[in-house]
């Protein structure tokens, strides 16, 4: 039976793991992720969820346990943040290379030092090369829906890759909003039982991910790249199907808002994409042709969607909630990369905002847009990367 509850994104991720009939959860607590696994532990304890909950002693062990569990052919889930994710780093590579469709909720929290518990994307984005699919959510409802969509995607035989469902710490993880949970029957018909591509079986012993010499290694890696390309095609299909069944969809790879005739397109990720709509509406009322594009999926990177947004736009402004030291924000780099070689490309202005949880309001986004519009008019991007509201 469909129900509406008022709860946090973390708890909803727990509800989603339950709805997905996950069989194994191995996790280690870290602020601000803890309430995801506390909720799951509650469900397992009171029998609402038929799953094995493995208490491990670190995030590295959590991922190792997930790899092993997924390797036996069962649906597996975990969650972490920040340094916890970083601690799993080598295992992340192993999980994707083993082609195991683990779904992990990453509750985004800044990497230290200095120590921070507040949100930015430095944790998940520094893992962008590990072969994991990455989703970035902008609402509690989207977190619930995306966990389910992720399993559907990852378990597709053309994909078989693990996925991170990212949500900003505190902004979503600890914020209560209403959300709809569809009936279990409807969810089961959307997400059938997991059929693995390979699995460990004591009756048919096999070892996996074995040593590959240079003469075949590239081909294994190429198949991961192919899987990512397949994911790029499947994600919008799954999102649309989910929308038809449950009434919620998010634009597939990129959630576009009023971009059709825009002079300026603002690129964001996560909740900034939601607040950007408020800024866009306000500026549109003032007669400014601004649109916003929220990058919902960072890996695989939606190059083609970016190119489609060129339209008549003269300016792209990217708002990055992290920085690659010594270079620029990742969104800025990847968007510029997507534009190379295309016709009539807009200029690109890169902005860094919201690091370590610095609040980003729709007013801040409006300021970013107006600065970009000014540069658009003069035809010159005065600064390649602007750190927004930096203290003097």
């Amino acid at each position, binding site marked *: 039976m469909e129900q509406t509850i*008022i709860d946090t994104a973390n708890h909803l991720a727990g509800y989603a793991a339950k709805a997905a009939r996950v069989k194994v959860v191995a996790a280690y607590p870290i602020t601000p992720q803890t309430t995801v696994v506390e909720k799951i532990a509650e469900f397992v304890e009171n029998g609402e969820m038929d799953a094995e909950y493995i208490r491990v002693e670190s995030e590295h062990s959590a991922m190792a346990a997930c790899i092993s569990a997924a390797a036996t052919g069962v649906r597996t889930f975990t969650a972490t943040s920040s340094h916890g994710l970083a601690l799993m780093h080598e295992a992340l590579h192993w999980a994707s290379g083993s082609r195991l469709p683990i779904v992990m909720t990453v509750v985004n929290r800044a990497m230290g030092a200095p120590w921070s*518990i*507040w949100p930015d994307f430095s944790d998940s984005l520094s893992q962008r090369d590990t072969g994991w699919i990455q989703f970035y959510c902008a609402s509690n409802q989207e977190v619930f829906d995306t966990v389910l969509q992720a399993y559907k995607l990852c378990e597709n035989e053309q994909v078989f890759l693990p996925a991170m469902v990212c949500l900003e*710490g*505190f*902004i*979503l993880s*600890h*914020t*209560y*909003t*209403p959300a709809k949970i569809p009936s279990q029957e409807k969810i089961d018909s959307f997400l059938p039982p997991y059929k693995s591509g390979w699995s460990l079986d004591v009756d048919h012993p096999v070892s996996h991910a074995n040593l590959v010499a240079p003469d075949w290694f590239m081909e294994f890696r190429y198949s991961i790249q192919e899987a990512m390309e397949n994911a790029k095609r499947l994600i919008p299909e799954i999102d649309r199907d989910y929308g038809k069944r449950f009434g919620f969809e998010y634009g597939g790879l990129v959630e576009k808002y009023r971009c059709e005739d825009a002079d300026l397109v603002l690129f964001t990720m996560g*909740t*900034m994409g*939601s*607040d950007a*709509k*408020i800024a866009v509406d306000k500026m549109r009322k003032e007669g400014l042709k601004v649109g916003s594009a929220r990058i919902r999926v960072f890996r695989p990177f939606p190059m083609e969607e970016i190119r489609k947004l060129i339209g008549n736009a003269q300016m792209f402004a990217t708002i990055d909630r992290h920085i690659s030291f010594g270079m620029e924000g990742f969104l800025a780099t990847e968007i510029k990369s997507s534009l190379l070689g295309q016709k009539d490309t807009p200029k690109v202005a890169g902005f860094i905002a919201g690091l370590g*949880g610095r*609040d*980003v*309001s*729709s007013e801040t986004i409006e300021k970013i847009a107006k600065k970009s519009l000014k540069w658009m008019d003069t035809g010159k991007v005065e600064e390649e990367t602007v750190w927004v509201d930096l203290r003097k």
Partner: protein
Amino acid sequence: MLREIRIHGRGGQGSVTAAELLAHAAFIEGKSVQAFPYFGAERRGAPVKAFARVSDEPILLHSQVYSPDYVIVLDPMIYKVVDVTEGLKKDGIVILNTVKKPREIGLKNCRVASVDATGIALELNLLVAGSPVVNTSILGAFAKATGEIKLENVLKVINETWSGAAGEKNAKAAELAYERLIKGWEDSA
């Protein structure tokens, strides 16, 4: 219409729960809602904040609350160490848990309402680990002071959250706070 509420309390007093219950009551009345704590490490006894948003439209905002329409202060000592009127909208309402009458509190540029929620808790023996529970009664006071939510929905949400004797006591506290709340801007105050 969007209303933003800031709640000042002490860690462990249930400020976050108060925000959630308020949001829940407004949700029953068909509003879009959001409730969240001040995002940070919290210690039992330290001053903390929680927030709620209530709107007729879906809420796309995720930024912090800077100019609340209403402020709730759960502890009588807080307004002496924290500026509870910071950012408060013009003619905003501050509802305080205190034995003092509104005009004795001395907050400027706002409408002030007060109720002795601690006293009500002690009267009803509504204690948790020896500390008086004030976060449920203050919602009754909020309903009376602002008219933004109905008392009946506050009671509904309380009874849905706590069952049996606990539910009854908390609901009674909210009713008493509703009756006893004094609005400083009314002549009789």
